């Protein structure tokens, strides 16, 4: 059976982490499962955990409206942790799911000790902001 560290190393968010960093993350990540229909985080509530999807699918809704689908490798919960606000959306499991959960205080220390993870989250949020603002996107045929 694969070790937890070996499984963590397969998560794209941690793709650029060293073996030592993977070991540290494996020590703070808890593997949990969810059933179809489970509400993993609820919009407007205070919540302090960071979640990474290991398997299965979930939907992100705001005010009952679906805004995004999540699958393996995707993560959520960083908005309220970084903005120190209530949950900005609801995440509901669409199938049986496996997740890694990292507590808020461990999330902060992970960012401080693992710059590649910070960079990865920065890039993802930047792309979301650009899409939300309707900004110009990269056109590979243009250059």
């Amino acid at each position, binding site marked *: 059976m694969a070790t937890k560290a070996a499984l963590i190393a397969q998560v794209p968010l941690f793709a650029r982490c060293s073996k030592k960093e993977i070991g540290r993350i494996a020590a703070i990540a808890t593997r949990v499962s969810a059933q179809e229909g489970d509400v993993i985080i609820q919009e407007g509530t205070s919540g302090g955990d960071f979640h990474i999807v290991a398997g299965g699918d979930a939907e992100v809704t705001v005010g009952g409206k679906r805004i995004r689908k999540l699958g393996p490798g995707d993560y959520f919960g*960083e908005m309220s942790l970084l*903005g120190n606000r209530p949950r900005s959306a609801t995440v509901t499991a669409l199938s049986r799911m496996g997740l890694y959960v990292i507590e808020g205080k461990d999330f902060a220390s992970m960012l401080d*000790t693992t710059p590649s993870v*910070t*960079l990865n*989250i920065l890039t993802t949020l*930047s792309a979301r902001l650009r899409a*939300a603002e309707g*900004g*110009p996107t990269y056109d590979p045929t243009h250059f």
Partner: protein
Amino acid sequence: MARVDRTQLLRGVSLFSGCSNGELKRISSLATPVNADTGEVLAKEGKPGGETFVISSGSALVTLKGKKLARLHPGDVFGEMALLEKGPRAATVTAETPMSLYVLDPREFSTLLEEVPSIGRKILSALVDRLYEVERTQRL
């Protein structure tokens, strides 16, 4: 003539306020101070551009398709989106007053994030604030 300590000037920029003396020295060796005149366009939407800017003094206007998105003040960062996504400039940034800024090229920015992790966390928080604001406005 009084000699201005560059690291002490950096301490006055809110993005760097929590940094140690050692970190400020490192930032000072990476970031280049530049000035901009009123009306100068520092980033142009859709155009390539790889530098990240940190405002030291003055203010700038962020626009997209001619519409005002935000006003930037000392301590604010811009330009990081094109760098992070390796895409074109996400918006236009124009100096509203004479400005002084620190500029970092992509390599200097990556080095800064690696060596001074608190900066990455602050830039993340600023991005999250903007996302909240945009996503909230779109729902209304």
